[in-house]
């Protein structure tokens, strides 16, 4: 478009001015948008890095007023809760995605696709309420399992959509080739089509994982949080985002420092996951997922 310099020369001044102004406004918007991003990362590093230490990563919180303590139990707790979430979210999500891609060109398929979109838009706190009613009320106590269920439910729509998209990108001829060998369709779907789309599906799964890893709201009244070590999924369990929340709204300076450090840990984990996704997507057979 800059090659049209000849035309530009004959344009009226006001039109040229408008063009320049619009370009400047758009560039300014980009700068304004990136400012908070840089500010957030800058503050996380500056305020968080000082409190990071091996003992911060491995110890549970110290009693109020005592120095030291860390988020070890939160890191382990988040790991366990996310593990449970993956056990629920990935099989259901991938299964639903396969159904939509391979058998979903009908009314039922459209309805399920629509429902998955609805589920994707449900506020996370509302998922928390529902899981509280279904799991916590029945068990009569908070548990890591309930937290995992809530996060798992939140993973499903993202995983479903990603799986469907990736499977649809697999060329039809590959399916036909498999069927021509006399393989039943379910076998062809699982061992050939899904196989080809694996890297794309993994990408979608990891994006869903990164999305729920920082979720706090659905854990408030499911996993609930815990100041002590706990690795039993049947008990209330600490999670990194919950600990950040508790520390951030507390009145103690020491806890504020720890909130920054814990946030730095969390964001490093999430950005690490997203970056890995881009790397996998960039190398994989099916590009364009991330």
């Amino acid at each position: 478009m800059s090659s049209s310099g000849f035309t530009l020369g004959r344009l009226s001044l006001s039109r040229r001015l408008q063009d320049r102004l619009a370009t400047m406004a758009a560039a300014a918007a980009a700068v304004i948008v990136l400012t908070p991003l840089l500010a957030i990362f800058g503050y996380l590093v500056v305020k968080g890095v000082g409190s990071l230490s091996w003992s911060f990563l491995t110890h549970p919180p110290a009693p109020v007023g005592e120095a030291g303590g860390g988020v070890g139990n939160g890191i382990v707790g988040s790991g366990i809760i996310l593990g449970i979430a993956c056990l629920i979210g990935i099989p259901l999500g991938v299964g639903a995605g396969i159904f939509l891609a391979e058998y979903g060109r009908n009314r039922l398929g459209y309805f399920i696709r629509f429902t998955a979109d609805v589920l994707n838009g449900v506020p996370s706190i509302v998922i928390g309420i529902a899981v509280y009613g279904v799991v916590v009320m029945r068990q009569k106590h908070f548990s890591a399992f309930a937290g995992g269920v809530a996060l798992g439910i939140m993973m499903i729509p993202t995983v479903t959509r990603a799986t469907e998209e990736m499977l649809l990108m697999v060329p039809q001829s590959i399916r036909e080739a498999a069927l021509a060998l006399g393989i039943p369709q379910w076998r062809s779907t699982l061992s050939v089509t899904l196989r080809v789309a694996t890297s794309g599906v993994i990408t979608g799964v990891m994006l869903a994982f990164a999305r729920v890893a920082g979720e706090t709201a659905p854990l408030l009244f499911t996993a609930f949080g815990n100041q002590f070590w706990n690795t039993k999924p049947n008990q209330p369990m600490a999670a990194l985002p919950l600990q950040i929340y508790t520390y951030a709204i507390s009145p103690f300076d020491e806890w504020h420092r720890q909130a920054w450090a814990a946030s730095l840990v969390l964001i490093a984990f999430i950005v690490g996951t997203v970056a890995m996704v881009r790397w996998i997507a960039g190398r994989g057979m099916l590009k364009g997922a991330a």
Partner: protein
Amino acid sequence: MLLCALSVLGIVALVVTELVTRSKLSLHEFGWKFFFSSQWDPVGGEFGALPFIYGTLVSSALALLLAVPLAIGVAVFINEMCPAGLRRTISFLVELLAAIPSVIYGLWAIFVLAPILRNHVQPFLASTMGWTGLFTGPKYGIGMLAAGVILAIMVLPIIASITREVMLAVPHPQREAVLALGATRWEMIRIGVLRNARAGIVGGVILGLGRALGETMAVTMVIGNTPQIVKSLFAPAHSMASVIANEFSEASTDLYLSAVIEIGLALFIITLIVNVIARALVWMTTGGMPVRADVQ
């Protein structure tokens, strides 16, 4: 596979039935009055959701007001103006904004954004636009304005990424036709691209609205958690999602708990309607191409 797919239906059905059955008590007790009363008195057993609905709507509207021009600006910049070498970096950074957890936005808003608002932005707004009545009263930093600003930052990447997608869906000959008529680059973007992508952009904005309405943690941390309806944006307020986060596990009576759950039900219905409208609009523009609303 069919079972997995049906489980999606099952989960949504379960969420709806849970919300309805557990809020029955409050639904029967207060009826429609629940949504028009601003009395929130857990001790006296009086529950009205108006201040929370007000807080949710105003903070989300404020967020859109701030975010929409910036999001469209950044989408136009990335898609149409940005030097090719910078494009990947900027779009990655904007996507990164979507990957930051809500609780970290909240933390940053408490300790960085709120002091900036208190010491610089609010005095400026009060002295230049105090006459509107929107910017008066004590300057806490924390309050409706802070909630609106942090929400704006959070919905920006969603609106920007959908705007980019629908802009890409505009057929290339449209641009070429406008350019061939002697348009400048901006005229080409305005007439050839934005005008054709209008419905989809509106869809993206509404999808951002859906996110803003349901956003919990960051809002809870900075909105001030005071159930009141005050015109000034400096004043602390409350939102539907925050009252659930704050009071759900403290709800001491059955009626209290069911009132909080009814707010959850209302939030679910509002976001459902908003999302359905948004999907329909985006779908109209991209012609049914799948749109990834959750791009990270």
